[in-house]
């Protein structure tokens, strides 16, 4: 048996439907793979092996009896630990929520279960999704499967690494400034940030509510189309979710685009992407030209303000979203005895409990962003920071709107550099923030974007190609991406992990 783990999700689904393999066998194969390689990669924080096999047997039974089986038909899925689930702890990579057991399932979890997806476990991430390397996890970092000394990117590092190292055929990540696409690029997989509002955020532990989106991380565009079809759609529990029908994305792939225009933002060159990345992107443009696309230069004049704008808006929202972790109703609380003993005259025990619990429960990057956001929203600074950032955000959105009048999709590198060494940037937050250079625009504007593999550096590190389309044009995004994957095999390359 050539291993089941070598197949894409769609291929596995065909085998399952044809009765060539059972869901239990597939789940077992991936669980075995996890036991074999996860000690090296550390993509998972928590595994639900027993529950997964149990659910798989139920799906198998239903299929055997000729009953209706959901869209995922018993395929395993890994889930970023920022999505609330009734089983296991939901930690968001934070010590603050080390023992937090959610009383409810996120809407996407419910959707996975209704579609007969088998949830294998929860994947590692930067604490509260803040970071670009997964080094900010309170539970050790995750290694890049292509080079274990390098980071997998972040914040959905575990989600990317588990797909790249064949521990799961499908996984869910979240993207606030690039947290799906950048790790997808670093790990050589396909990662989609859907249109803001396309997927319900209910049950996703919020980082920056106006930017957060949940999306698929997979081996191919075809697999991403399958997974998005399952999780997308209006949710009455999320007032910001869009009440628009969900297209059959996989059907859309069967009708390729005849001729289309791709726009290459001229400003990208200003940020000096790595020459090997530039070369890979140019090669990709050539592939597209050969398939009949035309490439145009476009301009996103406010792109240079995207990162500073993002680093005002996201921390502002985060400072408020994370206020609930005050140790009163749930989550980490400081040791009462030690705290009371340390009280000085005039100290309020309540204030002391708040500040000590938060000081101990949050990691340094989370604290940095809470302070940044608190500052930006403070009286006297609000206009200069938060309000101004909102105005620039509008300008950036206009840039995209204008560009999309001109072209069908925007193309370019996903990241300026390939995966960096573990520890390389931990003491330099600014260079870490610049990881988001090419990705934050889509979050600020709300349009859909995707990273697909388009080559490797001389050090055999994956390179990501970013494609961006207007809001709710995921079908177009998938068609353009799928077209590329039909004529290239970058997305089929696998790291050798022994």
């Amino acid at each position, binding site marked *: 048996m050539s291993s089941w783990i070598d197949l894409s999700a769609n291929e596995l689904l065909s085998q399952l439907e044809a009765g060539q393999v059972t869901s239990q066998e597939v789940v077992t194969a991936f669980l075995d793979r996890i036991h074999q390689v996860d000690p090296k990669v550390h993509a998972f924080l928590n595994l639900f092996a027993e529950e997964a096999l149990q659910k798989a047997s139920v799906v198998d039974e239903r299929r055997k009896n000729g009953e209706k089986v959901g869209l995922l038909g018993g395929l395993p899925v890994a889930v970023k630990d920022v*999505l*609330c689930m009734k089983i296991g702890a*939901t930690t*968001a990579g934070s010590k603050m*929520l080390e023992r*937090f057991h*959610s*009383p*409810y399932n*996120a809407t996407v979890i419910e959707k996975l279960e209704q579609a007969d997806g088998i949830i294998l476990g929860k994947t590692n991430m930067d604490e509260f999704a803040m970071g670009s390397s997964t080094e900010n996890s309170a539970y050790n970092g995750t290694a890049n499967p292509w080079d274990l000394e390098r980071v997998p990117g972040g914040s959905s590092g575990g989600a990317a690494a588990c797909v790249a190292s064949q521990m799961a055929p499908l996984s869910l990540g979240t993207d606030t400034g690039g947290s799906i696409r950048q790790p997808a690029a670093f790990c050589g997989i396909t990662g989609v940030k859907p249109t803001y509002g396309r997927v319900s*955020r*209910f*049950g*996703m*532990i*919020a980082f*920056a*509510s*106006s930017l957060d989106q949940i999306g698929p991380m997979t081996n191919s565009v075809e697999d991403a189309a399958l997974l998005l079809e399952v999780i997308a759609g209006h949710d*009455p*529990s*999320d*007032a*910001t979710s869009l009440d628009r029908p969900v297209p059959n994305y996989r059907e859309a792939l069967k009708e390729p685009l005849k001729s289309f225009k791709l726009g290459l933002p001229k400003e990208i060159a200003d940020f000096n992407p790595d020459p090997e990345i530039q070369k890979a992107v140019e090669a990709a443009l050539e592939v597209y030209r050969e398939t009949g696309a035309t490439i145009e230069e476009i301009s996103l004049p406010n792109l240079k303000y995207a990162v500073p704008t993002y680093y005002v808006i996201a921390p*502002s*929202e985060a*400072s*408020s979203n*994370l*206020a*609930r*972790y*005050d140790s*009163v*109703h*749930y989550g980490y609380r400081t040791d009462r005895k030690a705290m009371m003993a340390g009280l000085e005259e005039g100290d309020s025990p*309540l204030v002391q409990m*708040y500040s000590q619990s938060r000081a101990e429960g949050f990691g340094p990057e989370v604290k940095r962003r809470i302070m940044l956001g*608190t500052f930006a*929203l*403070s*009286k006297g600074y*609000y206009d200069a920071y*938060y309000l101004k950032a909102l105005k620039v955000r509008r300008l950036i959105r206009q840039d995209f709107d204008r560009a999309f009048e001109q072209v069908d999709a925007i193309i370019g590198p996903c990241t300026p550099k390939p995966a960096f060494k573990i520890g390389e940037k931990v003491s330099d937050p600014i260079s870490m923030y610049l990881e988001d250079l090419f990705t934050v625009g889509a979050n600020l504007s709300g349009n859909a974007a995707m990273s697909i593999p388009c080559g490797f550096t001389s050090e055999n590190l994956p390179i990501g190609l970013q494609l961006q389309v207007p809001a709710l044009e995921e079908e177009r995004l998938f068609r353009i991406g799928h077209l590329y994957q039909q004529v290239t095999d970058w997305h089929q390359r696998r790291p050798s992990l022994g």
Partner: protein
Amino acid sequence: MNATVTDAAYTTIIGLEVHTQLLTKSKLFCGCANRFGEEPNTLTCPVCIGMPGVMPVMNREAFRLAVRTGLALQGKIASFCKWDRKNYYYPDLPKGYQISQFDLPFCEGGHLEVEVEEGQAPSKVRLHRIHLEEDAGKSMHDESMGGRDSLVDLNRTGVPLLEIVTEPDIRSPEEAKAFLTELKLLLVYLGVSDCNMQEGSLRVDANVNLHLPGESGETIATPIVEIKNMNSFRAVERALHHEVVRQWEEWQATGKKKGEVPKQTRGWNDEAGETFAQREKEESSDYRYFPEPDLVPVTMTAEQIATAEAEVGELPQALRTRLQSEYELSAYDADVLVNQGKALVRYYLEVADACGDAKLVSNWLQQDIMRTLKERNITIEELPVSAPMLTELLKKVQSNELPRARARDVFAQMVETEASLEETMDAMGIKQVDAGALRELCQSLVDANPRIVEDVKGGKQQAVGALIGQAKKKDPNVNPGEVRKICLELIQAMGEDS
């Protein structure tokens, strides 16, 4: 001048902030029941207790009631309003922020006409704005200072709360009380709130200072003080009286003007009858308001506003006017009836329209009915004598079939037994006395009481009362007026004979 308070010495400037809970079935942003008096922490869900990942969804009914209130108060309903987060830490605020409306409330302006003293022209209190927000939970602190833990009840968390802010138009504590009384009446008429101060569904804060004439004709303002925790309208009036005197004395002692000292918040101690310093506003928090990213703005079309307008119904002031003009009641009578609430007025109108004697019905309502309601502590809806039943009874009074005093007995009996008029009259043996029989009865009484006859003849007309008493003893159904009339006729005839 010594430190006595004279009317001419200053003008009292008062502004009120009224919080009123809306009578919705469920909370403002989740499906939990909005009910008072349940076991602590039983009306909660992941959304209102601020679990990680949850999102608010606006309760349309709450917004509808809010708009109805704004329209009834003559405010301008915004075609576009939004939600904002007010950030602060407190154990009864589990998210660490309150969802409120900051710069774009749903309603601006408006006014309420208030009659401070009977017979005087009503004063117009302008409203600054009205906004909708979620209530916080309830903290219960250890009042014994025994160092026990504080307790938090989150049943109230997320209950829809209207904040009605007046302009500083109120010029006396009496006017403040009159405003609150009229506002409460209006809110109850609208059916938007039960305004129960004991249960906290209506809460009042008052801002007060004094304006004094300066030496060169300018106006000097004393520092504004906010008074909190007043538990009744009477308490508001007393607290303001106390505060006015206190500020006058403080002005005399210190000469400090508004702006020279930080704004102060003072509590009200009802037992001691005085206000006490709580905190200086300067140390109060900066709430870091920013737009709530989890909710979409609310838009109101002209049609929607027109629909809401139709739901306002007849308001107390209009009813008072109508009772005076159409029913020819005195201002006093109209006021008494209207102040009893919408249901009683509806009852009144039904009976008055059917009987055609508005004054008679008004007297009955103000005497027998209101006394019965009070004695039995029931509402007009719970009164066993319905409007048609009272109509039937009063028609008998109008047609002289039932003497007034007898009718009151019948009413009392109907309340007691919950029986119909006919049943009650039968049970009490009441029937119309035949005219011939009545004359016979009177003749026998005159014959049997020569001394009374002499007295009457001697000019003491009131002596005939004894005959009436005897007649009623013999036949309770006799009409005392008739008996009197007939007896006097008979006695007079005797005189002519002799």
